[in-house]
């Protein structure tokens, strides 16, 4: 049996990679994918810890997260699509409407 901390270390690595992707990449699609990566890193932690403690709670929450992530993906991709239609770019540096 794989020790729980292995899962947690992997989860942390995946989360860090996701975070770096969100912060450093400029393509909005990639950023979006990185967010998904972060979510799934957390999912991994949940199931690992659920296994570790012998509790179903973590596994339950994972289903919630997956359901929400699916919805988010639909909405998020629709937004990116609309942004591309109006601005003709998905480069995060050029999307600075919030600069005011």
């Amino acid at each position, binding site marked *: 049996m794989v020790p729980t901390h292995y899962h947690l270390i992997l989860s942390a690595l995946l989360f860090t990679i996701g975070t770096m992707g*969100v*912060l*450093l990449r*400029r393509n909005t699609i990639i950023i979006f994918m990185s967010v998904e990566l972060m979510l799934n890193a957390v999912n991994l932690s949940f199931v690992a810890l659920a296994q570790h403690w012998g509790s179903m709670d973590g596994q339950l929450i994972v289903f919630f997260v997956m359901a929400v992530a699916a919805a988010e993906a639909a909405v998020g991709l629709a937004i990116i699509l609309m942004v591309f239609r109006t601005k003709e770019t998905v480069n995060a540096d050029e999307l600075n409407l*919030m*600069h005011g």
Partner: protein
Amino acid sequence: MEHASTAIQATIQAVSYLRWIVFFPLIGVLFNIFVAPKLGRRAINLVAPGVILAAFAFAWTAFEQLGELPPGSALVDNIYPWITAGQLHVDFSLRVDALTAVMILIITGVGALIHIYSTGYMAHDEDVARYFTYLNLFTASMLLLVLGENLLLLFVGWEGVGLCSYLLIGFWYTDDEKASAGKKAFIVNRVGDAGFLLGMFLLFWTLVANGVWTLSFSEIQRAIAEHPGIISGGIATAICLLLFIGATGKSAQVPLYVWLPDAMAGPTPVSALIHAATMVTAGIYMIARLHFLYDLSPSALAIVAYVAASTAILAASIALVQTDIKKVLAYSTVSQLGYMFLGVGVGAYGAGIFYLMTHAFFKALLFLGAGSVIHGMSDEQDIRKMGGLWKKMPWTFATFLVAWLAICGIPPLSGYHSKDLILEEAYLNQHLQLLYWVGVIGAGMTAFYMSRLFFVTFLGHNRADHDVAHHIHESPWSMVFPLVVLAVLSFGGGNLPLVHWLEPIFHHGHAGEVPQMIAWLPTVAGAVGIALAYFMYGATTKAVEGMNTEPVGIHNLLWNKWYVDEIYDATVVRFTAWLADWFWKGVDTQVIDGTVNGTARLMEYWGSATRILQTGNVQNYALSFLVGVTVILFLGVYLW
């Protein structure tokens, strides 16, 4: 014990028509504001005096009804509960007793005559609607002042007359000097009002400390009668003196008399109504109304008497040399008000009110006569340019003659009866007998300056410019009629049994007999003053011509009114202006504006420093999130 018996018989009768005495002039106010400008001069001339006559009719009804009740009775019109706060109940309630009955008759009676006179005097003025608005409002305020059953209502009227005085003095507001005179009157009155308010607070505080929650005159009087120790001597003195400060402002006594002579900037009928017959008597009325309070403090009464006597002499000395007909009358008013205060100061409230009434008659007559002269002389006020008017203005001359003899105290006219009464009462007061002699000297001075005014204005030959002299005419009947009525009152008003009528209020009859010589001395002083003035100004024209020369010595001092205005300017006015300047430039501009502007500047600096953080780039914000979350997690894990 004799008072106890009258107190049992005395009744308080509830009526509901007293309110109309106040409401009618107020209706006039509304009419003059909203309706009159569309209807024009004829309607105004009808309504403005009409509402005062209506008020007079109600006042007369009240007087008649009161006369049928036993002495000491009163009529009360309780309109509605005005203020209810905890145990304090102040009603909007009007009350007519013997004292108020006299006052409302004077105010509406003399007031109606002056309104009628004004229709003639203001016939050539554009703004006659505004004029009568103020005049009606003034009458309403003054009536509220004397009818109010409690100190608060009195104060409402008190402020109202002050406001109207300001409005009417500055009636011709385009003239800077007249506008300033209005402001001066308002500000000087405000100084007195501050004292009045403090006195009222102190009285209320003292009563409440003893469980008496009231501001009503009758209830205060009853509380003092039932629990004599409720207000101690020292507190009573303080209350009375604070209220007296208010009276010195309103009734033009030393040291706050300075506004009254300047108040002559207003139209002459205003001077007659406000600054001679009614408003300035508010202070005397107030003290007479609160006589039960002043009786607690002989020292306060003594101070009132001393201030009064010094005012009488000071103002009379200034009046000796003035050449503006209205200025002479103005200082004469200040001086005569001093006599009234002398009357109340020696405890003879009835005599003070008696003189208030007769003075209202003949001083209103003097001012209206002066107004008639000014009207006829094409707005000339300098007596050096008058003279010989008896031929051209016979009615004005004849009525002025009556008023002149009345104010000089010549028997059997009204001034003789009333002023002598005050002086006799002063003589009978052992502690204040000195003031009798001051009063006698003042009577002589009064006779001198009034005779000087009379001789120079009406006798001799005319000294006006040719154009003016050509135009001199007798005034229209609307102006002459009030003069004649007032002349009759000035002649016979002294025979009214006013002191007896007021006895149930003040419980103070005639204190006793004085020696024959003492009784006649004021009259003799008056006769000497007239004779002296006749030899200087009547029999020869030399002194009249001498009036054009530059005044020197004591004459110069009097000509410049003892430099009181200059002294006030150098001390109080300059100091206040300096203080205001300091607060403006020091406190306001630097501290307050500095704080406000400094806060704004700090925010601006902070904003410009932090605005670079708003890039609009989502990833920068996300980085901030990450840093923040990381820091919080570290703090959570390692510190907590």
